[in-house]
């Protein structure tokens, strides 16, 4: 059975700047992979590549063994193939209300009939969002905006969820709650690709880990062994812990 997502010798960057140099990585059904590395190692670029936001300049990105969108970046095809992405930062539509933000995704995923149920699940997950459902998203606090962009992907439980810096800007209690939810959807069969500075949380959640350094994957293996590797290799780059 083909992996849900497979990167083969992928290179990518922005204009004249290269961020990734020949990276190969695959995530199978139900698998969970933690991607760790120092700032500027290329983690976010790898996440963007894996969901179609950035097109590779060399190599191929395969979903279910097939190339998607013939080289042009087209994130919507990835989403429809079941690969969802929660980008880093406050990725919400600032001029739409909380409910409109959610409805945009849920209407496609669940249809008109399933929309109300999906909204309820999102508000159950983050009651704060329920209180502000008619508020314009741009006026939410930073943490609330994170909740909103997470609620979008967590409720959908896609086949593969790519999450970039989930915990950034969230209170520790909420972070725990988010990882608990991730554990639940993982148990329900969603594959995960987690990019995370909070290495401890990520390694605990995932089976497998990949270490990214200067645009190259330098180590892959079971998460349990990753701790020791990180101690020895990444201490000087400041990515440990």
């Amino acid at each position: 059975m083909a992996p849900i997502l497979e990167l083969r010798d992928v290179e990518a960057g922005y204009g004249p700047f290269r961020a990734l140099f020949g990276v190969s990585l695959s995530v199978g059904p139900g698998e969970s992979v933690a991607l760790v590395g120092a700032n500027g190692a290329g983690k976010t670029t790898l996440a963007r590549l894996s969901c179609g936001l950035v097109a590779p300049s060399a190599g191929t990105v395969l979903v279910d063994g097939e190339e998607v969108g013939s080289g042009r970046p087209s994130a919507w095809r990835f989403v429809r193939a079941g690969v969802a992405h929660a980008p880093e930062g406050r990725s919400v539509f600032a001029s739409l209300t909380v409910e409109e933000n959610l409805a945009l995704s849920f209407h496609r995923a669940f249809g008109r009939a399933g929309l109300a149920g999906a909204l309820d699940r999102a508000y159950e997950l983050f009651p704060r969002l329920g209180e502000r459902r008619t508020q314009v998203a741009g006026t939410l606090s930073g943490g609330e905006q994170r909740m909103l962009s997470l609620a979008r992907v967590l409720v959908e439980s896609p086949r593969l969820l790519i999450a970039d810096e989930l915990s950034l800007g969230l209170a520790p209690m909420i972070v725990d709650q988010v990882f608990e939810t991730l554990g639940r959807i993982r148990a329900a069969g969603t594959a995960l690709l987690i990019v995370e500075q909070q290495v401890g949380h990520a390694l605990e959640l995932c089976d497998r880990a990949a270490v990214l350094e200067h645009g190259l994957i330098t180590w892959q293996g079971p998460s349990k062994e990753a701790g020791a590797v990180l101690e020895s290799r990444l201490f000087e780059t400041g990515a440990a812990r």
Partner: protein
Amino acid sequence: MSGAGGFFEDLFRGLLQGTPPGAVYALVALGFVLTYKTSGVFNLAFGAQAYISAAMYFKAHTLWGWPKWAALVVSAFVLAPLIGLVLERLIFRHLRTASAVSKLVVALGLSVALPELFNQAARFTAVAGRQITGIIPDGASVFYDPFGVYRFNRDELAMMAVALAATLLLAALFRFTMIGLAMRAVVESPRMTELSGINADRTSAFAWALSSTFAGLAGVLIAPRFNSLLSTDFFTLVVIAVAAAAVGKLVSLPRALLGGLGLGWLIAVFNTFLPRWSGDHTWLRPFQENLTPSLPFVVLFAILVLWRAIGREREASDPLSGVDPPPPALAALARHPKLTLFTRLFGVGFIAVVGSVVWFRAGVLWMHLVTTAVIMAVIYLSVTVITGMAGQISLCQGTFAAIGGFTIFQMADRFNMSVLAAALLGAGVAAAVGAVLSLPVLRLGGVWLAIATLAFAFFFDAVMVKFSWVGGGTTALLTGTRVPRPLVGPIDFASDRAFLVLAVVVLVIVSVVVIQLREGTVGRTLTALRGSEVAAASIGISAARARIIAFAVSAAIAGLGGALLSMHQQNVNYSTNFGPVNALFWLVIVVALGARTVEGAIQAGAAFALFEPLILKGDLLAWILRGEDHLPGLLPISGSWRLVLFGMMAIQFARHPEGLVEHGKRRASARINRWLEAREGAAP
């Protein structure tokens, strides 16, 4: 009829009278809001789109004798959406994540190029006095008089009904449908929309088809109101409608409807009462004559400047804008030293050759054209300062130039002042006007600043020029706004050669000033502000001072250039040289060729003055082929293709926002840099 009853009856009649034109403004304003909401484009080309459908309808129905319904279908429901789809695919898709300001520039280019392209392609010329018969049967000749004070014709009623129905339908579209929601989402962030699983390309294609259809429909409905079909009338209508759209902050459809109607009522009421009052109070008379045509622009300017809420909202930025590659640096900064040396030598050589050819060989016509090119380059440097350096779009550079021209005209005419001194005075007056204007409008920034300056330009055009202390009044009508050439000691600049030298000297001085400004504190401050206003403020940089200086300097340069142009032509020639629409042309040509460098402005000046005779008329080719007899049959090409090419330039600008020349230079220098480095690497 007397007393209070008469007043209220007149007021009521005024309001009814104002409703049909109000519905016209509302219709255009609705379309404007629709485009802005669904594509994020401040679409000044809306008038051009409406014009094309109106012209197509006219051609199909009146000239070809098609039935009305067929003409309507072809013009508004086939041609119009098709144009929208082509524009989206060729241009605006690539601009989705560009700033609102660069979208505005492209729309400006299209507003000039689209009507011309249609006229050329369809061999259409507006026939004066041939009115369009509207789609409504007997639209202009069957009247209804519901209140016994004002008679509406069928066309007017249809327009009012369509405006109301469009407001309701479109508001429902945005409120209750997913496609409405998706269109708003795409404007904010196409990539985030894609992450929601929605095809952003298809969504924005739909948005453009929809808004273009609306433009076409509006055009066909409105056209019977004009005496003859002119695209400039449609453009002016759009500027007026922007006032109505601004009432809804460009996003509210019901408010745009109310804004349009309100504008119509206001104008009608003024028209009703001002003549009456000015009978008793003669001081009102000049206002009565000038206010009515300018009222929409005054209202627009007042709304923008006085309504604090406008311009306060920052443009909602795309949270995923980091996906785009960063803007590249100026090519000159990344050059190999040898290449820099070579470029300079080549530049000096090229100028020397062209200069000597012009000096020794050129006839009167070519001397005239080259001088025009040099002077236009001076004027274009004002765009380099305000747009290239300060990142602000000013659409009233023509007005500043006109101020320079009128100042020397007035000074020479009334006080017999030396024209060179008057030119400096004109630059000073323009700088003062620019500084004063910048105080209220700079707060706005972005597209709002552009619109406020456009309103100012139209206001100057409609009101100020008519005052005798500006445009010369009746004397100017009889004898023209004549301006003498300067005379300094033994040098008489009435000689074209001497005047060319003067223009070149001014160009060199202004270029040095602009470069000094760019490298100095003001320039660095402006660069910092362009990068991030918040970050600049956090290290203690004040935006206001640097921008006011930029505005004033830019106005002064434009004023000086305008004065020179007037001396050159020995006449101000306001409407051919400095009209509000001309200045739009200037902006696009400079920005498309490269607004950040002095060379960009000089090349734009050369393109403006020399492109048509040199390339289109085939003079260059004829010179190369030694004789006009050898020219291929397709030359000379009609001058109006210049406008179409100009539209192509706007399209290129969409792909290379740094400017065409800059883009070419960057590619070439990257290639030569690599070659030079490889050779150096191989040598040792």
